[in-house]
């Protein structure tokens, strides 16, 4: 064996033991630190953000849940949300009877309070007065009644 190899072997075997005193001191510190950590964990509420960012699986699960919730709220609207839209369509219609119906007036009230109801009624009033101004001729009246052939 070369002298250098012999020296390396001797250095490798240069060993000593950690004393029992060091063991005791460090194990006490480890124990104390772990007890403190457990006490702190009991006091603090679990932080959801810390949990989510703790691992990639948790991040993936959070993203999936958010995407699923978004999909449900966007594409599957409940019927209760559709009905008011129909009410709004009635309100928007220009028909005189629809403008003054209970449902449309109610929708107007919900939309803008008494002011909206007044506006809607003014619109209906305008429509009635416009109808009165357009005087019908007798011929037009008979046409509507189906007596046109008799003239």
């Amino acid at each position, binding site marked *: 064996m070369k*002298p*250098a190899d*012999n*020296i*390396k072997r*001797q*250095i*490798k*075997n*240069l*060993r*000593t*033991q*950690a*004393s029992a*005193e*060091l*063991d005791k*001191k*460090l*194990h006490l*510190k*480890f124990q104390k*630190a*772990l007890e403190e*950590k457990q006490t702190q964990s009991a006091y603090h509420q679990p932080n959801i953000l810390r949990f989510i960012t*703790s691992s990639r699986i948790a991040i993936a699960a959070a993203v999936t849940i958010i995407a699923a919730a978004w999909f449900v709220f966007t594409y599957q609207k409940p019927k209760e949300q559709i009905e008011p839209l129909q009410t709004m369509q009635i309100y928007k219609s220009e028909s005189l009877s629809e403008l003054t119906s209970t449902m449309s007036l109610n929708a107007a009230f919900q939309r803008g309070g008494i002011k909206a109801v007044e506006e809607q009624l003014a619109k209906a009033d305008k429509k009635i007065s416009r109808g009165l101004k357009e005087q019908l001729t007798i011929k037009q009246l008979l046409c509507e009644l189906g007596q046109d052939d008799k003239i």
Partner: protein
Amino acid sequence: MLEDTLLRHKYNRGRKDVLPRIYEKYKHDLVSLAAALLQDKSKAEDVVHDLFVSLLETDRQLRINQTLKGYLATAVANRARTASRLSLVRQTTPNSYDPENSVTADNQAVFGEEKQYLVSALAQLPYEQREVILLKIVSGLKFKDIAKSQDVSINTVQGRYRYGLEKLRKLLDGELI
């Protein structure tokens, strides 16, 4: 090796409860390394104690990128270097520091009577050479990692290793069985 990877992974994720296991696994290696570097067992134990206390108390996340054993050995060597410098500063004698004189009979007995020639020879090496030799042979670190920890080039580390071994060989000529 697999256990080391697991321990390192858990520690990196903030699990301080793995420290007792790490200590139990490497305590003798680390104390031996520090004792060989400092030539003083009580100082060596202080270094190891301080290292584990700092690992336990630190709030910032330590990212251990190299092997666990390599990381601990490097940390012990860094702390031992600081302790060695401090002891150099504290020496009030006007003469230059002579490591041979600092090795007491008690400290030589740390590694056993049969190793006293080797311990004495190691003590005569410059600290940097001793550190490189011990980190390379005892802890199995690569020259690249030693160079990084000492903030010098690989060539310097290799030179220290070669010159150190050569000097040891001359000192121990005929002493080792």
